[in-house]
């Protein structure tokens, strides 16, 4: 059996879960025209990052990043794993809080937020408690169940598209580099790639496959932004919080007994997110188990209680967005420092190995 499959599917699920929510809004508000430029810049950065990361990992077969950093010394593990863990916790908090808000806005307006967050965290915790291998296998099952739904609805969202909105294609306006929302859009890239460093001892995978998959994934990034743009036009689309979701709501299929495809689309994506949070929790707990050798079996529970309490403290959407922004610093640190450091350690260990052999 091709073990790359587990990793590829996880990659697809995680990124699908991210790109249809905040990402289109961020990109649309960052630029007036020629949106493909910021999208492609993001994708190229993303490809570079995962290439560097996997290149570095390839020097350490059968090892995950926790082991690599621990071997590199105490300072390295504190400097790199600390932020990774902190970032993971932040990501869990933000995703759980944000997505429960989205669900509540879109269709569960009567259910209190606390119970929704509780439910989502409960599922993620259960997934995380099953351990790494089981998480990836769950990914396969979930992909079999929900990926067809997502892909089908994704294609049906082209229903109201007016291709003339594609123009103007070119732009001389690069002001998006100065926009906050452009940098926030990297959330879609930064969240999902770290897990590639944790799969090694569990599954072997070919980095080439992941890269190919990432390249084929670029159209999804493009269309998640362009479908709302092509449906409503820039001027209207920029007024929405979640442009893609609004576009979905405008889709009407005559032969379907359901009126709101959005719900199935959204919820399938939420299952991917639940899986992702489970994965992140598992990663965080693996790091914390390495450094806090006591109460190993309670660490997951403790972490989840902390996350849940923080989620409860956040009173409104504004603060979520602020958190999102503050988290950017950590995000770019993780996006840049972790892959490069792994590559450097990898090159160094290769050099050391070559010297020992000589």
């Amino acid at each position: 059996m091709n073990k790359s499959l587990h990793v590829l599917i996880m990659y697809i699920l995680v990124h699908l879960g991210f790109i249809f929510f905040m990402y289109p809004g961020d990109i649309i508000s960052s630029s007036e025209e020629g949106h493909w430029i910021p999208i492609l810049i993001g994708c190229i950065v993303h490809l570079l990052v995962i290439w560097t990361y996997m290149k570095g990992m390839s020097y350490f077969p059968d090892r995950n990043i926790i082991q690599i950093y621990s071997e590199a010394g105490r300072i390295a593990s504190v400097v790199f794993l600390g932020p990774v863990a902190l970032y993971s916790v932040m990501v869990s908090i933000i995703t759980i809080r944000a997505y429960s808000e989205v669900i509540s806005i879109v269709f569960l307006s009567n259910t209190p937020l606390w119970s929704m967050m509780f439910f989502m965290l409960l599922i993620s915790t259960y997934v995380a408690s099953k351990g790494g291998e089981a998480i990836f296998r769950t990914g396969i099952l979930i992909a079999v169940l929900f990926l067809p739904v997502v892909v089908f609805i994704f294609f049906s969202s082209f229903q109201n598209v007016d291709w003339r909105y594609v123009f103007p294609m070119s732009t001389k306006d690069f002001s998006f580099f100065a926009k906050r929302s452009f940098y926030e859009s990297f959330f879609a890239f930064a969240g999902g790639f770290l897990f590639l460093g944790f799969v090694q001892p569990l599954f072997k995978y070919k980095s080439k496959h992941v890269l190919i998959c990432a390249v084929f994934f670029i159209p999804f990034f493009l269309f998640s932004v362009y479908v709302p743009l092509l449906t409503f036009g820039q001027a209207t689309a920029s007024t929405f919080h979640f442009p893609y979701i609004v576009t979905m709501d405008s889709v009407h299929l005559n032969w379907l007994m359901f009126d709101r495809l959005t719900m199935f689309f959204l919820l399938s994506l939420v299952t991917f997110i639940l899986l992702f949070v489970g994965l992140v929790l598992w990663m965080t707990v693996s790091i914390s188990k390495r450094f806090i050798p006591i109460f190993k079996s309670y660490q997951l529970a403790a972490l989840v209680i902390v996350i849940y309490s923080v989620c409860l403290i956040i009173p409104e959407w504004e603060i979520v967005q602020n958190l999102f922004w503050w988290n950017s610093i950590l995000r770019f640190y993780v996006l840049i420092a972790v892959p490069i450091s792994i590559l450097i350690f990898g090159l160094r260990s290769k050099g050391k190995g070559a010297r020992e052999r000589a």
Partner: protein
Amino acid sequence: MVPFLQEMKSRLGSNDDFFIQRVFLLDKPVVIMGLSTLIDVVNTKSALLEYIEQSFPSGKTVEEVIKAMSTTPHIEINEAISAITKGKLIIYFEVTKQRVIVDPIMKLLNRSIESPTNENVFQGSMSSFTEDIDTNIGIARKEFNSRRLVVKSYYTGSLQKKRLSLLYDEERVDRKLVNQVIDRIENNQDKEINHIQNLTKVMGFNSMELIPKFNTTELPQEAANSIRKGRVVLFIDRIPFALVLPSLLWDMFALENDKNLPKPIMISLRLLRVVGVLATLIMPGLYVALVSVNPEVLRIELALSIAQSRDGVPYPALIEIIMMLVVLELVIEASIRLPRSIGPTITMVGGIILGQAVVAAQLVSNLLIIILAATTIANSTVVGVQNSLSIRLFKYLIVVLASIYGVLGILGGMVLVSAYLAGLTTFGVSYLYINPAERRRDS
């Protein structure tokens, strides 16, 4: 009298079916003993005499001939007793005081090989396993007649000796798996194995798992196919089915017998079973979610007609569906319990209740009856009754979650179920593997 005979008499004499007879084999006095309920005494004696007369011209003495028949040369009293309870015959030579165990002509206490009762086969071989372990092994050998088939037997239990046999394909099987199974059996030889729960304990599995760790099958061709695919098959004496280790999710959907049909038909049949399982899990939950939490998902016409059909139903959808599901479970359980002659009554009465009366009395909605019927039918498409039982339980989890969180609850429940299934392993083999033999080639 001689001490051996006396000891045997005092230990077994309280059983009325214990016989001890003196017979003359070519003028030599011998004593034969055994249990008359297990041994066909008359035929055994005549066969014995005939056999000795035939081998007499070779110039051997009676003792030599009989000793050649038995496997153990000299036996202790405990061995003799356990041999007798297993249905063997003991021959005791009065002159030399030697005793041997001989295989007698047994009374026929087993049913013949019949067609399967728990699993129906469609255009396939119709024999099924029986209670007798030797018959089962024999059938399995017929299905998989290769020198690579290995049969290993063990006796476990301290109160009674239960035979346990292990069958596998020498070359394709995962050695690690076999060794682990054998280790478990050998380390627990004093434990009684009367049912699968005992065996689960012996194998060291968690007894609270919802999904059985053994895939049970009555069908020899399925068992043989499992062996061919590198899995281990266990037989226990008096249990009329094969236990396949490790059990896999795919067993729920695939029958070897499907391959007697053209490939496209096989694929569509298997897909149908997958749809059946999904429908069982999702449909009741979807009803609850759409009726009580998220009616806005539906087309307005549909939503109105559903609301109309629930008009006058005095309780929430969750109560409604749980109530009807329980009634349905009762019907299923009752139709298993009842003798075949009374069985149709249940179908009839159940049909009236579930079909018309309960709707006419406005206790539940029309739609619910449709959902229930569809669910029950869908649930039966799964291969293996034991699998359909687990699915039936998962359904309730999803119904409850759906009543709280609507469609989110259903999907969340599906994630929970997926994670549960993904987390299951049997001796390190994941439940989700389609063909475990591939795993070894990989590693």
